[in-house]
Structures are given as structure tokens and as C-alpha cells.
């Protein structure tokens, strides 16, 4: 047993030097551990805010015909509650845990891009402040966290709240994409020797898979948000039916993001459960391969079934049928995971410390959460219950019952590692039991309220039979949950000041984060145990009963170049963004809207400047070849030609815009104008960013930076980006300029 030798005083997160300037040490940090803690603290602050909003909602709904809150205030509060809890609590909390734990689990020194990491983090408080600033700027958004068009459009929501909401979500979305890119690059490039992909701890593996859903889903939301913002600020018509736009289109875009978003939050919870349950059952996880593989399947399935959120919009029977069945399929890999966790517990020597208690409760609450989810995959039932509290109960069972419980378990589990001190087990159990009782009291009854017909999103209700006592019960439950949260915060504060020191491996766990001090030194590890299986610390302590070697014993695979991985992951995310813009262009122009159309475009001129852009793909490649042959002059010359060609393209596009303006074609003219300028404008923006990047590269080249060894990958990585921008233009040219020729 490795009941480690450490009984010394706990280490500190800050070094003695840093203590004198602790504010700067925290604000300017690029260390993944501190950023992880900052993420978690930010999430905690917003959790308190979102919790207060939830309490206000429950006070308002405690009795019928209540006038505690004005109807509009109620709308603002439930919008803020939803947005805060998802984007400012759950996502930062998950990212905080990943930030802290993931590099440690793979034996890395830090994330692949520490400064990008800090940037992604600081976007969270920035986005949060932006969102809450709307309160001072004329009222918080009041259109729900889904902001259904056209109610979120200017004619129906003229105050600035929705604009702040859009801006905040864009900021947060960009931060999330940055984090996801960082996670992928970290896992692929920074694994220590021996940590092959097949030996990854499940928390790391699942979050690695999850990062891909973030990259696929968040840009879809970003595309929808910019379209909504352009609608609101520049009078375009994407989602305004009076201008020919489609309100259902917003729902498609929003739920194409919104459904995967559920899994973006649920998969890390699965990762946490898969990490904690085995440790507290003293057994390896049952069916590692299935848990790991099914996460990939869940991730992919989650991207394709958003239409089940839209049964009530009238997609048509065939669509309802297909999406009903496809949605039910998700229950299979997810349901079997529940069996994996239970089978891990069967026959194990269970230890019921508070991390395990939270996880067991999460599994038990996830079962009904999933089952009510399957019931929503049936269109007929969905039509009846969608607008009711049955749905509210369902998604709170997922979001709180599974996700928040798992996160709380994870905090209890990794807190000793983060702070070097043990949370009070007694207070932990108090907060656990209050949370379980409060949560189930609040939300079980809401299923029945919903089935009785109580509609959601409405600020009050009449005094119908059973409504009152059920709502009172629900509100009392909320008080229990508040108490639990207060105890948790108290526990954290008391522990940080007086808590008893934690050993390096207080839970006798088996993954690498427990192989270093608590809290870890800035460099994370001084020495790592040999890694031949998924439980290196078990092998270390039990050499005679070591786990079977996973894969071939020698880890010979080279780690890929992190610059290239970064750009490829970024391109992956951009495909989603441009995909939405191109699909909406096709949709909005399929039936020629009245007014100007593709006929106004000047094809010959466009072909000339397109040729320049395509040629620049060739020249950037020549530049890479020259660099590889160590010909600085050639590299600089080809790079300069690329910049010139790119500039010609931008100037050409500018001229085309000018001609169209002369003819009176604007964003606000009709749907062609809206979709044309949005699509080509964002492409042009990407060309401009590429030009700026090339100017920087040119400057670096003149400064002699590329003479150093190993810098070539920088230029090659940029080359990927530039080829991608060209590739997007191939698609735009085909769809916007060439396709209409067929129909002439």
C-alpha cells in the first residue's frame, strides 16, 4: 500500500516569493493549476449568482398568483439563471477541473499553450461581466437562454439586453473553442513517455473526446449568434419572417449547438464518475474499453439528433420518426455506461467518502434523468410535455442530478491535491445529504406538476388543485439546496485556513496526479513512475500483482507537432462555422428572394481575384519548401508574393462590395444581401487575419527567427490555415457564383 510518507506541513500553491505580490501572481499566471483554480473560483462566484436567481424564481413560484416579481423581471431572471448556469458555471467548472487535472494525469508540465489557456480563462469573467452589464444598460435579456427568434429580434426585444447576451455568448464561445484546442494539443503532444493513447485515464480520454464536440458545436452557435447580431444591429433578415427570414432556422442552428452542449457537460461528468467510482470501489473500472469507445459514439450521435428539440415546430412526420429513433439510440451507449459503473462497484470494497457519495447519487439520479429523456424522444409525448414543468424536471435532473453532483464529487476528490488540505468529511456529508434531499424534493415533484399541465416560462399560476402544495414542496427543496451550497462554501473556506494537511495520495488512487506532492510544485513532477498500464501507481505499489501491459510495452510513437495540431483543430472548428454560413446561404437563396440576387455579381472580375487567392496557396507552399531547404531569401520572397496575392484578393473583394453598394445592395436589402455579405465578409475577415499573420511571419523572418532549428513547423502550420481559407473560397465561389449559372 502506498500510504505515502508525507506527513509534513502542506505545501502552498504560491511560493514564498510570490506571496509578497500574490495579486499579480494570480492575475498574471499562465500555470495550468492556478488557471484551473481560477476557473473553479469564477464558476463558484457565478454559481452563487445563478443560485440566488434560482431562489428568486422559486420564491415567486411558491404560491399561486404571486406578485413578488414583475413578469418582465421574472423573464429576465430565468434567462439569466439558464445562461449563467450553463455558460458561466457548468462550462468553467468543467474546464477548471480539466485544466487542473488533465496535464497532471498525462505527466505533462503544463497545457500545450499556456498563454492561450490564460486568454481562454480571462474571457470567462469578461463574458460574465458583459452579460451582467446589461442590467445597467436597460435591463437583462428576457428571451430565455435559447433566445427563440423572432422574439429575440429587434421588433420584439428592442432593449440592449439581447445584444449583450449575444456578445457575452460569443466571447464565451471563443474562449471555449480556445480551451478545446488546447486540450486536444495537450493530450496529443505532451503525454509523457509511456502514456500511450490507450493508457489514458478515462477522465482524460473522455475530455479529449469531448473537446472535439466543443469544436464541432460551439462554432455553430457562434455562427447563429453573429447572424442574430447582424439582424439586430444591421437590419438583416435571417430570422425575421417579415423580411422573408426563417425563425425555425434559428432553432435549427441553436439546437445543432444546444443538443451537443448537453453532452459537452455530461461527458466530463461521465469522466469524473469513471475516475472516482473505481478508486472508491478499490477495483479497476469494469470495461474500460467500452466506456472509452462508447464516449466516442455518444459524441458523434449527439451531433446529429438536435431535431428532437424541435418536434413541436412541425418538421413533418417523417422527420419526427427518424429523429425519434435516432435519439433513442443514444440511450444504449449511455445506459450501458451506468452498468459499467455499477459493475465496478459490485464485489468491490466500497468506501463511502463524500466524493463517492456524490458520484453514487449522480449515477442514481442520472437513470431517471435519462429515462425521461428517452420519453421526450417520442414525438407524441413530447408535444404534450415540451412546454411543461416535466421538461424542466428532466433537464434539471441531467444538469444538476448528474452534472452538478459529479462536479461536486470531483471537487471533493481533487481538493486535497489542489490545496494540500483535506476538506472536512463531516461537513462534506452534511452538504451531500442536504443536497440530495433538496434536489430530489425540488425536482421530482416538478415531473408531476408538468404532467398536471403547469406550463414553464410563465411567471405565475392560478390556484388549481394540487398546484400549490407541489410548488411549496419544490420551493422548500430549493432552501435545502441553498443550505448545502452554503455549507460547501463554508467547508472550503474553513479548510483553506485550518484544514488538516493532505497526503500526496489521500485516496490511494492510481493515476499520475497522485504521484506528485499536494499541491504539486510548479513543475508538476520531479520523477514519474514507469507507465505500462492504466494504473501506474497500482503497478508501482503492487509489482507482483501489476496490471497487464496495455499495448506493446515500449511507447515508440512520436508526439505530433503542437503548432500543427493547434491549427488543424482550429480548422476543424472553422468548418462548423463556415458550414452553417454556407448552408444558410443555400437555404435563403434556394427560392430567389425578391430584389437583387446573384445576377448583380461580377463573375469575370471575381474569377480574376479568386485566381490570385488560389495562386497564393501555391506560393505559400513554395515558401515552406524554400525554408526546408534553408533558403531564407527564397522563403521571404515567396512569402511576400503570397501577401501581395492575398492583398489583391481583398482589394478585389472590396471593389466588388463597392459596386454592389453603388447598385444599392446592402445587408438590409433582402436575404440575398444578408447572406451574401455575411458569408463573404467572414471569409474576407479570415483572409485579413491571414495577412496579418503573414506580416508577423515576415517580420520574424527578417529578424532571423527562422534560422533557428525547429521553427519550420510554424510556417507549415500557418500554411494549413491559408490552404483552408482558400478551400473555403472554393466552396463560396461554387455556391455563390457558379451555382446560379446552372439555373439561368
Amino acid at each position, binding site marked *: 500500500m502506498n500510504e505515502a510518507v508525507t506527513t509534513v506541513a502542506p505545501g502552498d500553491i504560491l511560493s514564498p516569493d510570490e506571496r509578497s505580490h500574490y495579486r499579480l501572481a494570480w492575475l498574471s499566471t499562465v500555470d495550468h493549476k492556478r488557471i484551473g483554480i481560477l476557473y473553479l473560483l469564477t464558476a463558484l462566484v457565478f454559481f452563487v449568482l445563478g443560485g440566488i436567481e434560482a431562489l428568486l424564481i422559486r420564491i415567486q413560484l411558491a404560491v399561486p398568483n404571486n406578485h413578488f416579481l414583475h413578469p418582465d423581471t421574472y423573464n429576465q431572471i430565468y434567462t439569466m439563471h439558464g445562461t449563467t448556469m450553463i455558460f458561466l458555471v457548468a462550462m468553467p467548472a468543467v474546464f477548471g477541473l480539466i485544466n487542473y487535472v488533465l496535464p497532471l494525469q498525462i505527466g505533462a508540465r503544463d497545457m500545450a499553450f499556456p498563454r492561450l489557456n490564460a486568454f481562454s480563462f480571462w474571457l470567462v469573467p469578461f463574458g460574465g461581466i458583459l452579460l451582467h452589464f446589461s442590467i445597467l444598460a436597460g435591463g437583462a435579456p428576457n428571451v430565455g437562454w435559447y433566445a427563440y427568434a423572432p422574439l429575440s429580434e429587434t421588433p420584439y426585444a428592442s432593449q440592449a439586453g439581447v445584444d449583450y447576451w449575444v456578445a457575452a455568448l460569443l466571447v464565451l464561445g471563443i474562449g471555449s473553442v480556445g480551451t478545446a484546442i488546447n486540450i486536444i494539443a495537450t493530450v496529443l503532444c505532451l503525454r509523457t513517455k509511456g502514456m500511450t493513447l490507450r493508457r489514458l485515464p478515462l477522465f482524460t480520454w473522455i475530455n479529449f473526446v469531448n473537446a472535439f464536440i466543443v469544436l464541432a458545436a460551439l462554432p455553430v452557435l457562434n455562427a447563429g449568434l453573429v447572424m442574430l447580431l447582424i439582424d439586430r444591429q444591421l437590419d438583416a433578415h435571417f430570422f425575421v419572417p417579415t423580411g422573408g427570414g426563417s425563425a425555425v432556422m434559428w432553432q435549427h442552428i441553436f439546437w445543432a449547438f444546444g443538443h451537443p452542449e448537453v453532452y459537452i457537460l455530461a461527458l466530463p461528468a461521465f469522466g469524473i464518475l469513471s475516475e472516482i467510482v473505481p478508486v472508491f470501489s478499490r477495483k479497476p473500472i469494469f470495461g474500460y474499453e467500452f466506456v472509452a469507445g462508447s464516449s466516442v459514439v455518444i459524441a458523434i450521435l449527439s451531433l446529429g439528433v438536435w431535431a428532437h428539440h424541435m418536434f413541436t415546430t412541425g418538421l*413533418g412526420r417523417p*422527420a419526427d420518426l*427518424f429523429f425519434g429513433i435516432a435519439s433513442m439510440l443514444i440511450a444504449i451507449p449511455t445506459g450501458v455506461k451506468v452498468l459499467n459503473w455499477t459493475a465496478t462497484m459490485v464485489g468491490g470494497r466500497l468506501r463511502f467518502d463524500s466524493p463517492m457519495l456524490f458520484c453514487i447519487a449522480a449515477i442514481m439520479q442520472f437513470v431517471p434523468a435519462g429515462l425521461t429523456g428517452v420519453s421526450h424522444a417520442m414525438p407524441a409525448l413530447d408535444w404534450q410535455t415540451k412546454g411543461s414543468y416535466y421538461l424542466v424536471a428532466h433537464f434539471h435532473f441531467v444538469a444538476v442530478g448528474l452534472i452538478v453532483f459529479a462536479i461536486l464529487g470531483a471537487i471533493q476528490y481533487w481538493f486535497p491535491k489542489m490545496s494540500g488540505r483535506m476538506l472536512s468529511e463531516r461537513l462534506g456529508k452534511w452538504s451531500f445529504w442536504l443536497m440530495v434531499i433538496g434536489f430530489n424534493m425540488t425536482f421530482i415533484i416538478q415531473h408531476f406538476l408538468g404532467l398536471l399541465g403547469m406550463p414553464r416560462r410563465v411567471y405565475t399560476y392560478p390556484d388549481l388543485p394540487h398546484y400549490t402544495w407541489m410548488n411549496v414542496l419544490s420551493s422548500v427543496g430549493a432552501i435545502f439546496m441553498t443550505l448545502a451550497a452554503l455549507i460547501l462554501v463554508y467547508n472550503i473556506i474553513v479548510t483553506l485556513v485550518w484544514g488538516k494537511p493532505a497526503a500526496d495520495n489521500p485516496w490511494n488512487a492510481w493515476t499520475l496526479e497522485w504521484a506528485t506532492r499536494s499541491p504539486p510544485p510548479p513543475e508538476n513532477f520531479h520523477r514519474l513512475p514507469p507507465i505500462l498500464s492504466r494504473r501506474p501507481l497500482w503497478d508501482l505499489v503492487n509489482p507482483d500483482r501489476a496490471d497487464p501491459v496495455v499495448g506493446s510495452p515500449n511507447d515508440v510513437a512520436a508526439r505530433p507537432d503542437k503548432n500543427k495540431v493547434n491549427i488543424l483543430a482550429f480548422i476543424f472548428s472553422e468548418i462548423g462555422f463556415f458550414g452553417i454560413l454556407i448552408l444558410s446561404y*443555400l*437555404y435563403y437563396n434556394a427560392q430567389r428572394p425578391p430584389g437583387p440576387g446573384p445576377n448583380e455579381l461580377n463573375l469575370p472580375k471575381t474569377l480574376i481575384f479568386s485566381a490570385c487567392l488560389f495562386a497564393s496557396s501555391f506560393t505559400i507552399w513554395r515558401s515552406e519548401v524554400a525554408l526546408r531547404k534553408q533558403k531564407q531569401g527564397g522563403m521571404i520572397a515567396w512569402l511576400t508574393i503570397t501577401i501581395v496575392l492575398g492583398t489583391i484578393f481583398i482589394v478585389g473583394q472590396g471593389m466588388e462590395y463597392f459596386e454592389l453598394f453603388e447598385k444599392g445592395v446592402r445587408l438590409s436589402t433582402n436575404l440575398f444581401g444578408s447572406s451574401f455579405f455575411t458569408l463573404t465578409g467572414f471569409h474576407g475577415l479570415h483572409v485579413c487575419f491571414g495577412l496579418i499573420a503573414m506580416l508577423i511571419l515576415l517580420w520574424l523572418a527578417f529578424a532571423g527567427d527562422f534560422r533557428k532549428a525547429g521553427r519550420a513547423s510554424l510556417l507549415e502550420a500557418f500554411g494549413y490555415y491559408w490552404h483552408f481559407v482558400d478551400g473555403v473560397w472554393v466552396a463560396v465561389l461554387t455556391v455563390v457564383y457558379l451555382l446560379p449559372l446552372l439555373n439561368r
Partner: protein
Amino acid sequence: MTTSHFFLTAWSWNPVVLGGCLAAILLYLYFFGWQRGILFLCLGLAIVMIALASPLSALADGYLFSAHMAQHILLLLVAPVCILLSLPRDLSLTTKANWLFHSGIGWLSGVGSMWLWHAPTFCNAAVSSRPIYALQSVSLLIFGSLFWWQVLAPREQDRLSPLPAVGYLFSACTACSMLGIILTFSPVRVCAIYMQPVDQLGLLGLIRDGWEMTPEKDQQIGGLLMWVPMCLIYLAAIFSQLVRWFSPPTPALRTTIVSRNAL
């Protein structure tokens, strides 16, 4: 005509299809002899028959876009799988045309044939002209085989390694979903010829009134078939790749297996 009558009578015993299938079995026996793989070949050929000789093909022949789509999926994504699985495990096809077995070509032939044959011009042409229809069917089988070769080639070293294969399949799934989404929600008819079918078999009454299948619904189902079930085929393949990835490489390395009892 009633539904059951239609399904009983609408089999077309096209001699070219039958002859082709028979020739395939004979060729297989000539080259590889009698082995278990032939069962897969027969299954594959049965699927080809369903696609080309059954009532499905009668419906696809100008009546229903969705039937055409089902036919398309069977020929591109299902039949080639069976045919590749039937090949002996040590077969390699090293020819001068090695570029044919490049993963980029495989991807393009799988996804490209899906997109290309649904461009309005080609889609209409394939329905109205017999030779183009034949060309389409054969090309789907060939392109489908090239696509699946990357994943199901008989020899391990000819296949993509598991994780790249997941990317290969996922991107193909996404590209086909995009087309499926366009077909499902497009306000215009993509394959106009299905709007006013030439009623050679006297089926139109049954389809429009008996099955309540309007042209709009028909295209929607076609798009959904391409979007959802097709993606599930890719997904099943992805799952098989994950199984392949996690399965232990060689038994020799598992000598260190020890008891996994609880502490």
C-alpha cells in the same frame, strides 16, 4: 393495384443483373475456391438484387426519390462491405494503379459519388436514361468498394489505422449529412423528375392515395435516409474501428496477466 400485389409482382428479372451476379460467384470460385467468404459474397449479391431487381428498384425507377435513395445506400454502403468481407484475408491488390488505394481517393469516391449523383442534372439523367442508370449502379458499387477498402481491406496493412479511420468515417458521415440536411429541408425539388412520374406500372394511385406519399414528403424521407440511417452505418463502422483499436494486439504480450481481485 394493391400493396401486396405490387410487392409480389414487381420483381424484374433483369438478365444483365442476374448474369452479373452469377458471373461474380463463378469468378469467386475460380480464383479463391470454395470458402466461407462466399457466404458474404452471396449476401452482398442478394443486396445488389434487392437494389436492382426488387420492387424497390421499380419504385426508384421514376416513382419515389426515397426509394432511389435507399437503392443508392444499398449499392454504395452495404453491398461493397459484404463483397470486401468475402475476400480471402491474405489478398492484396498491388497493381500499377496504387493511387486508387490512397485514402484521399477512397474518401472522394465515397462522398463524391453521393454528391455528384444528386446534382439535379445527373439525378434526372439517371432516371430517364437506361445506360446512365446502369453506369450509376456500377459506379456506386465500384466507388463504394474503393471507399470501404480503406477500412475493410483484407490485409491489415492495407487498412487505415483505427484512429485515422475514425476520422475518415466521421468526416464522410458529416459530408453526407450535409447533403441529407440540404435534401430534407430544401424548399426546392432536387430531382425534379420524381415530381411527375411517368406512370408505366399504374402505381401512381397507390403511391399518392394508398401510401399518402406526396412529392414533398418523398424528398424529405430521401434526405432523412441519407442523413440518419446512413450516418448510423458510418457510426457502426466507427464503433468497429474502436473495437479494433482497443483489442489487444497479440496474445504474446498478455503473458503478464495477473489477478485483478480487489485490494
